[in-house]
């Protein structure tokens, strides 16, 4: 599903954000990526999103070699990937329904399908009653749930979450993780970049630990490791 072969990424000459990363994630896996700031976690997500191109090495996602992917093919590729950010990134001038419908409009889904799928996605995250509310009227946890609904409404094969609980209290953090786990149960491959030790240790999922651009550990049912 996701494969990185000896991937290097240098932002400026000689400074490597990723330095020879080899990684294979199978379909339907739930993977935590942990590490200190600057360890290369976000670069890894950006490379999988094809926001960045690697300096060397090969990235294969959903059977497609990203190195050879043409610019015009990127939108179609991204439609198979859902993404959730720490700061939610909702459109403040649109209500919750419109925020989720937006993800479908972008993919040129018909209005008939949008009317069916948006309420379904809202139900999955438990916000069906609040579809008319605007982001500022919701708590942080609710806003992140909307972001998850937006990420899953197009039924992506992969869900990338970059610090999804970074701005949330423990209760809300657990609710968000539960939603991500439910998406994983429905067959979506989930990659979560996080600093939340409690969650990582508790959930007993695969944990990839990064440090200074390299993978220092990869455990099947791992915990949060502090690499010094």
């Amino acid at each position, binding site marked *: 599903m996701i494969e990185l072969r000896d991937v290097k990424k240098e932002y400026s000459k000689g400074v490597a954000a990723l330095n020879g990363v080899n990684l294979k994630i199978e379909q339907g896996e739930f993977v935590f990526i942990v590490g200190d700031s600057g360890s290369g976690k976000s670069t890894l997500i950006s490379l999988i999103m094809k926001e960045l191109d690697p300096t060397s090495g090969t990235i294969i996602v959903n059977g497609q070699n990203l190195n050879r992917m043409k610019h*015009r093919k990127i939108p179609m590729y991204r439609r198979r990937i859902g993404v959730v950010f720490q700061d939610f990134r909702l459109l403040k001038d649109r209500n919750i329904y419109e925020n989720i419908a*937006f993800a479908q409009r972008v993919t*040129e889904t018909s209005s008939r399908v949008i009317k069916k799928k948006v309420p379904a996605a809202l139900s999955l995250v438990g916000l069906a009653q609040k579809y008319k509310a605007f982001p500022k009227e919701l708590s942080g946890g609710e806003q992140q749930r909307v972001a998850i609904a937006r990420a899953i409404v197009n039924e992506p094969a992969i869900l990338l979450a970059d610090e999804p609980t970074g701005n949330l209290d423990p209760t809300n953090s657990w609710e968000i993780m539960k939603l991500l786990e439910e998406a994983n149960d429905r067959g979506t491959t989930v990659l979560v970049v996080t600093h939340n030790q409690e969650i990582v240790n508790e959930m007993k999922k695969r944990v990839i630990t990064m440090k200074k651009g390299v993978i220092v550990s990869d455990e099947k049912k791992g915990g949060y490791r502090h690499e010094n």
Partner: protein
Amino acid sequence: MKISTFGYSMKQGVKNIGRNKMFSVASIATMAACIFLFGLFYSIVVNFNYIVEKAEEGVAITVFFNKEATQAQKDKIGKELEEADGVLNVKYVSADDAWNSFQGNYFGESAELAEGFKSDNPLATSDNYEVYMEDVAKQKDVVAFAEGLEGVRKVNRSDLVAKTLTSVNKLVGYVSVAIIAILLAVSVFLISNTVTMGVTVRREEIAIMKYIGAKDGFVRAPFIFEGLLIGFVGAVIPLVMLYFMYEKAIQYVMTKFSLLNNIIDFLPVIDVYKTLLPVGLALGVGIGFVGSFFTIRKHLRV
């Protein structure tokens, strides 16, 4: 692009205008000013052309014959002149016509002074062809052509009138084109600024669109619509204004300067708008498109 996506993009384009009210209003106002001035200069130029055309029709070359020229020779000269390039029509003026016209012009109300010439036409050898020009610029060639014809004694022409009319016409055209070009460049610049503002305001939304998998066209379409709409509205306002102002202006000129009534004639507004309306609208929409399309390409590498 699907119809629903098209509708959505249009709606977003309208919303963009609302979000950057000040910039949008400034762009529409500048565009309106440009198209207004374009319309104004266009009206002046076409009317001037029309006046010049009418005046050109009155600019004639006079072709006189040799004393011994036969009627057959004169007919041949007339035919050849009619066929010459740039000639509108050729009129034969007999010696009697020439004398009558001269009497009218010279003696006026004191016609009795011409009585002495009653039986002796002083212009007996002055029958001629009056050659009216279709294009004054070709007058010189026609004169040279006429002078080379057999049986022609002399060709009178009005070089000064012809040259002045042609060069004033050219000058007005050049000045108008220069002013219009500068104004259009300003319009493109302002629309580009408005779209840049729109991109800045919507940076977050655009980033989200890209993450979700929006195609370049989907991201760009609302901005293009915004530019087109600004261009369209910016063109319609001055075109409507000019339509109503045009006739009022002509009425005003004609009443204020009643002397002009006999000399010049203005084009009716419908005739001016046959070209001005499509060209003005195309200019507005075209500038809107160009301004937004190239700006969005520059600022939005999606």
